């Protein structure tokens, strides 16, 4: 009787450990794939087989072949080269965007959560206003006012996306602001900035990091969406959204022109989302139980 209980517990612990290992392996695989993707995008200029901007109308709209694995577009530009080059624009703009909104939103949230009072209510009402608009419509409006260009698209999306991080960070700050260790830090004579950045920020990075990773995919889609509508990257710059927009009239005659960047977006967004999910599994205390947390 007792022995079976012991056995059951052992098996439980073992499966738990196995799950842990599996999550870590998953994390490393996705991280490696994402890094590979980032490297390809970063060194696209050196890696491309053809000049992504060189036009050659004699080979326009050729289907995939040995010489051009993803075919050519209507100006005879090699699709593979353009997809690689476009990755640079799309992925790094999305990363820049997420970096900006995460930093800015977190700083605002830290400030509001710690300070409290009227200024907190004011900033939170402002963020409510931003959240009240349908995101994409608001981004189109902002991008329309600012004009085309990938940087303007990033600015437009940053304008609508920061409140999410501000709210998240603020909520987290409020949750730990009244913990005894924050009082202890005050009693040790630390300044407010030191308390915020040394005691509060390291304790709230987990959820923020998870949200940021999960947001990379979404932001990439929205950036590509703006470019597709002609409000993001301007031709001839290779960007997945605008490339899809270019090819949409030829969907029936030359589907590879739209499929290549489309698949690139699909794969990249999925990869970043999977990475985000795995990061959450690793970092989120709700889904992860650390065994032997407290020594008895």
């Amino acid at each position, binding site marked *: 009787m007792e022995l079976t209980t012991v056995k059951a517990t052992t098996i439980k612990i073992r499966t738990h450990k196995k799950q842990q290992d599996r999550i870590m392996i998953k994390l490393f695989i996705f991280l490696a794939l994402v890094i590979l993707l980032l490297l390809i995008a970063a060194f696209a200029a050196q890696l491309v087989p053809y000049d992504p901007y060189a036009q050659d109308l004699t080979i326009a709209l050729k289907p995939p072949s040995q010489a051009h694995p993803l075919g050519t577009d209507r100006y005879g530009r090699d699709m593979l080269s353009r997809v690689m080059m476009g990755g640079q624009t799309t992925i790094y703009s999305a990363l820049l965007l997420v970096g900006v909104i995460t930093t800015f939103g977190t700083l605002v949230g830290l400030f509001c959560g710690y300070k409290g009072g009227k200024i907190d209510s004011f900033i939170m009402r402002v963020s409510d206003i931003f959240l009240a608009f349908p995101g994409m419509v608001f981004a189109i409006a902002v991008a329309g006012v600012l004009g085309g260009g990938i940087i303007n698209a990033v600015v437009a999306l940053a304008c609508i996306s920061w409140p999410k991080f501000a709210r998240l960070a603020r909520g987290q700050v409020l949750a730990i602001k009244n913990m*005894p*260790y924050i*009082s*202890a*830090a005050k*009693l040790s004579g630390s300044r407010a900035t030191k308390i915020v950045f040394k*005691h509060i920020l390291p*304790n709230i990075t987990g959820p923020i990091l998870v949200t940021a990773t999960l947001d990379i995919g979404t932001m990439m889609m929205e950036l590509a969406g703006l470019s597709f509508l002609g409000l993001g990257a301007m031709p001839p710059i290779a960007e997945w959204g605008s490339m899809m927009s270019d090819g949409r009239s030829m969907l029936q005659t030359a589907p590879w022109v739209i499929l290549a960047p489309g698949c690139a977006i699909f794969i990249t967004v999925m990869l970043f989302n999977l990475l985000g999910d795995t990061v959450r599994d690793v970092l989120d205390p709700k889904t992860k139980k650390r065994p032997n947390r407290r*020594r008895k």
Partner: protein
Amino acid sequence: MKSVLEVRHLKKAYQHGKETVQAVDDVSFQIHTGECLGLVGESGCGKSTIAKMVTRLESPDAGEIFLNDREITRVSGKALRTVYQQMQMVFQMPVDSFNPRIKLGEGIRESLINQGMGRREAKTKAWEYLEICGLDKTFADRYPHQVSGGECQRASIARAIAIKPCLVICDEATSALDVTVQAQIIKMLKRLKKELGMSYLFICHDLALVQEICDRVMVMQNGTIVEQGIPDDIIMRPREAYTKKLIDSIF
């Protein structure tokens, strides 16, 4: 006798929806140099609120607080940070009172460094105080979740006394610990009081502990002090009905 802490007509109310709860209502008391003043009462009677107001983690609605004859009721910023060089607090939940991402040693060093002490000097000082509190050097490199509650509370006391305050406020410092550890901590607090000449405000709900460590005790009920005197007197000859009830509930 010189008073370390003097509190006059302290008041604090909390809003609970539409209701106003008078947590502390017109409380006055003094703590003399080298004295241990006990504060007992059931939970919710306002003991912890007093501790929070004295340490200025919360502002009182009315009344004055004097620390070494200096008024600290409204000080803030830099002046408040100098107040914390003379007054420290030991918290109820030892593990929660240390940042989970910072090692115990660094938590202890923080106040020393904030006072302008060099990093290396602060490090040896932290070791020294850990040893005074019965922990060896290795604890400085551990995280709060890697030590037991009793060890953590010792570290917390080391942190409180490291900057040699003249007043230490113990807010239920032993109630989260089991009985044997409790006895060790009390013994240590008594020893430190004698060696370093500190005063304590000892907030507690256990009259037996109060009898053990305190020179004087105040009984609190619904935000007011109903009775005060020497612990033995209070326990043997309680005057108020409430104090009697409190004693009966323990023995």
